[in-house]
């Protein structure tokens, strides 16, 4: 099952996917030209996401039921670490990230000596970004700055690159979308050195439909308050 490439330590790409049959094939084609180690965590999809990912040559780890993106990410990171990953990259399944951005993240880590590289949509001009989404994201950034003290320009971007050590030190407990804030809180707490890297995002009708709406941000806020209260 595992090709020789996959046995060697190296960068693993972790893709959490829930009902992404329409996009996952294209995403994996784009990635696998250069990156042989890709694990798709099929988060209990009811469509053919898992099968398509397997046919496209990725490793597929399947949750029996839908748990949420945070849980899927942690499963994928655990898998990558067990496969002796030297670096772990988290990547969205809906096709909004550019595979070429991963090279930019790698370069940024190498040149800065940081532990984590974070993709930022706000370091590039993004004329296609819908106004409402821009406002929501800006609010999330402001809240994250307040909460963690990290001077970031983007807060809920799924594109990240961790060194092995950083991936081991960050544990995601939030099963849902609040994991993005949780990761940043962990970076601030450890503390881990981080660097932001401009990352262009393709807003297609498909990815916009799948993305985080304004109503969902209320749920994220609630999850975070619950986590803060019970910790």
């Amino acid at each position: 099952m595992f090709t020789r490439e996959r046995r060697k330590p190296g960068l693993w790409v972790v893709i959490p996917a829930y009902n992404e049959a329409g996009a996952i094939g294209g995403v994996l084609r784009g990635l696998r030209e250069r990156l042989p180690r890709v694990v798709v965590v099929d988060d209990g999809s009811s469509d053919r996401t898992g099968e398509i990912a397997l046919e496209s040559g990725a490793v597929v780890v399947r949750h029996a039921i839908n748990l949420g993106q945070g849980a899927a990410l942690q499963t994928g990171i655990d898998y990558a670490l067990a496969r002796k990953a030297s670096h772990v990259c988290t990547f969205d399944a809906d096709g909004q990230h550019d595979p070429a951005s991963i090279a930019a993240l790698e370069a940024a880590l190498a040149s800065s000596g940081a532990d984590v590289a974070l993709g930022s949509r706000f370091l590039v001009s993004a004329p296609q970004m819908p106004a409402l989404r821009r406002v929501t994201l800006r609010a999330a950034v402001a809240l994250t700055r307040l909460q963690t003290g990290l001077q970031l320009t983007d807060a809920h971007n799924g594109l990240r690159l961790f060194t092995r050590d950083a991936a081991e030190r960050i544990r995601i407990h939030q099963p849902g979308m609040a994991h993005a804030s949780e990761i940043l809180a962990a970076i601030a707490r450890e503390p881990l050195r981080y660097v932001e890297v401009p990352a262009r995002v393709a807003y297609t009708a498909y990815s916009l439909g799948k993305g985080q709406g304004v109503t969902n941000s209320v749920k994220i806020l609630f999850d975070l308050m619950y986590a803060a209260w019970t910790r």
Partner: protein
Amino acid sequence: MIGSILLFAIIVFGMYVASHRLGGLQLLGALGLLGVGIAFVVWPNAAQWAAERVGVGRGADLVIYFAIVGGLFAVANFYFRFKRQEQQLIAIVREQALRNARLR
């Protein structure tokens, strides 16, 4: 008539509580609620008497306030229990997923 119906309901509730394993504090709360419920049915003026002591005015209002607070505690209790079980479920599903992946 209504008194016996209420008493019957309270006794059923008591049996329901007794048949489920509750934590010490929850059991104490449930039994306290049960006792107050029985007292208010047996002595209808007790609620009025207690309301006047705490400055509420009407016995019915006092009962409603207690019911609201009790309800909030019950909801919070269920919510926290749900969250704990959610974490356990997540741990099981993730463990199983990783084990299956290793087998392949």
